[in-house]
């Protein structure tokens, strides 16, 4: 259940971002998870549900974008691999060890209520720019 540790890292990052932007509450968190990242979406959702309590994420949902595995085929260029047990080009069968995507484990963005954003409430142009 390494997703628990990942969810803790995720919430810490969101808290840091929220503090930077003076946000009191986050509505949703968008993450990108590669098929070879070693992270299972529903397990991360369960873990997120546990660790978000008492943080700015308490009322936040997790929005997961699955990122497929793409490899560089010497013949066909960038191709998508749907079967992780066949890391070969699905068009021509050539092997490739060059991974173009699929290991992502990223936080893409967070959605916050306008009223919760200290920057928006402020008249300061500089503070707005920080958003």
């Amino acid at each position, binding site marked *: 259940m390494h997703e628990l540790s990942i969810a803790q890292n995720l919430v810490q990052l969101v808290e840091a971002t929220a503090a930077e932007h003076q946000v009191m509450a986050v509505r949703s968190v968008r993450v990108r998870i590669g098929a070879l990242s*070693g992270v299972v979406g529903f397990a991360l959702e369960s873990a997120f549900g546990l660790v978000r309590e008492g943080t700015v994420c308490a009322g936040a949902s997790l929005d997961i974008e699955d990122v497929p595995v793409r490899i560089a085929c010497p013949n066909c260029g960038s191709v998508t691999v749907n079967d992780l047990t066949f*890391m070969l080009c699905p068009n021509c069968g050539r092997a490739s060890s060059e*991974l173009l995507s699929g290991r992502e484990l*990223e936080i893409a963005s967070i959605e916050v209520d*306008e*009223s919760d954003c200290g920057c928006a409430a402020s008249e300061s142009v500089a503070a707005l720019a920080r958003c």
Partner: protein
Amino acid sequence: MTRILDVRQKILKQNDETARAMRARFHDAGTFVCDLVSSPGAGKTELLTYTMRELRERGMTCAAVVGDLATNNDAERLATSGAPAKQILTGTMCHLEADMVAESIRGWDLSTLDALFIENVGNLVCPATWDLGADKRILLFPVTEGEDKPLKYPTLINTADLVIINKLDLAEAVGFDRELAIHNVERVRPDVPVLELSVRNNAGLEAWMNWVVHHVAADVPVAPAEASSF
């Protein structure tokens, strides 16, 4: 009204930064570092005990840190090689993280070490996601686990720099199909080198030691002026 704040950061940013700093420190000290992963009972400790004893006999210095949920057994076995071995007790954690390794080697003079081995917690799933700052990740599959193990754990094998088919001495007893196993490794991780060995039967050990010694020799210390202050 809602507002979207662009973040675009790696979720394991903190782990990756610690791993990167350790890697720089290992590089500056000229210490070759391996992270060994496998299921529980695949023979990591036995292989490392042999390897460290052999390296010492060849005049090289090495040490190991080993992750385990609850016991010091592995560190005690590794220490029989004569090399220092430190246990990292993970409690309920199913994998090692970079700061656990950093903490365990805190205060070590790495410049005195030619090689450092990190024996991960026996687990074919969770360690895949965590960079520990090692130069190479080695994945062990014992013949007793069957030929299709590589297909069942594509994520971890995709992070491996070397695959070892271990416990060759038991291959006949379990009817191990060597060619099928190698074919399956190549299907999931094209181009990864594969070594087959048995510490018990003294099989394949020369090729393994050559691999280790080659990498140890290639990893020389950076001149002091260039060394990182970390």
